[in-house]
């Protein structure tokens, strides 16, 4: 076998890779923020005594968690198109990823809710806090604090999964790689470099979440318990 690797030609294209990586981060950021909001609302719905609300949230979570992201992306892409709505590939990708990660976040935050001792809520009621105040101060924040590690790994996995949106030609990192390898015929080198780029991105995200955790949960820092 005559191995003749040439990383230099691929590395010359670094501006395209950088654009792709930035788009990947943008997609992940939008989906993370929106997904966290959906997750919090979904988890509240999951715990509500309202049967229909509860049921809808349950169906949403189970449907998303038991079907592949690829199929979800196609459904959103063609579903919006068949409704006559024209969106850019980026918008569709962001919507599909948000719907996807929202379901996983709902499950994680719900698990966090379940870990809040009943006595805490009773104490808050005894202090005459309103329902909204109880949810915000006593249930949501402590719950998120508890499941923060699980949430962050979910968001890192989301960033990796965003590579699938290359299939509807969102111009993120994997799509850039597909283009470059078809242009240079250097598939092996291209995908090795892209794999390294993804590993770097996930390390950057983990570091970012760690810092964010320090800022969001000062109690943890004071107590010295690891996040």
């Amino acid at each position: 076998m005559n191995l003749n690797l040439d990383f230099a030609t691929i590395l010359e294209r670094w501006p395209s890779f950088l654009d792709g990586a930035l788009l990947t981060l943008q997609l992940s950021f939008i989906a993370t923020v929106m997904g966290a909001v959906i997750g919090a609302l979904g988890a509240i719905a999951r715990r509500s005594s309202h049967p229909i609300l509860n049921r809808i949230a349950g169906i949403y979570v189970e449907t998303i968690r038991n079907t592949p992201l690829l199929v979800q992306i196609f459904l959103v892409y063609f579903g919006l198109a068949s409704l006559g709505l024209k969106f850019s590939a980026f918008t569709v990708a962001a919507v599909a990823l948000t719907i996807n990660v929202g379901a996983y976040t709902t499950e994680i935050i719900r698990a966090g809710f379940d870990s809040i001792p009943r006595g805490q809520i009773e104490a808050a009621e005894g202090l005459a806090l309103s329902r909204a105040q109880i949810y915000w101060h006593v249930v949501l924040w402590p719950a998120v604090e508890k499941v923060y590690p699980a949430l962050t790994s979910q968001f890192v996995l989301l960033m990796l999964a965003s590579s699938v949106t290359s299939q509807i030609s969102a111009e993120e990192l994997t799509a850039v790689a597909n283009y470059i390898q078809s242009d240079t015929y250097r598939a092996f080198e291209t995908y090795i470099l892209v794999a390294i780029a993804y590993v770097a991105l996930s390390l950057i995200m983990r570091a970012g979440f760690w810092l964010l955790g320090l800022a969001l949960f000062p109690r943890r820092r004071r107590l010295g318990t690891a996040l």
Partner: protein
Amino acid sequence: MGGSINVNHLMFLAQGALWTVGLSLIALIGGGIAGFIIALCRIAPNRAVRVVSAGYIQLIQGTPLLVIMFLTYFGLPAIGIPISPLAAASASLTVYVSAYLGEIWRGCIESVPRPQWEAAEGLALSRTQRMSKVILPQAVRIATPPTVGFMVQIIKNTSLASVVGFVELARSGQIINNSLFEPFLIYAIIAAVYFALCYPISRLSRRLEQRTGFVRPQLVEA
């Protein structure tokens, strides 16, 4: 464009679904064997072995499966190793699954209570005996719910084999869509079939979790 969906299309989808199941089994068995070795490497007495296996897991878990697929299917032929779609999909999934199962199972092995290890050592069992006769039988019980849960991820991830042209469920849907152009209907059917495959396994995993009272050590997604 090309008429409505008929029995032949459904037969084609059924065939695709069969390949999805087949590919999932290949990934589970291949990834299971490799993952088991990795789990053992992660807790090996030799430091170098531990570091290398930890690096492998970090590397694979930091790379999207899609990129691993492309690397095997397009990358290997480019350096002179021809590979079929089935072989590429199987190899990529095996590598991917091994990293996740390796880490899940390491957690399971390590969660066997410490006194069990010490008692086995006190009985003068060798390392191999200790593992095979004391630790692993208990670890298997702990590992069953998360492993069943991870099977759902495997089934969903086989959909990515469609990008290298392997005709499983998602790809057969794309092919039918190319002739009928009813994307929403067809992908809804595909989603329903995936749901029918995955949901019973999800339920089973949750039941097993409740019965054993162990929590999944890691949350994984596809």
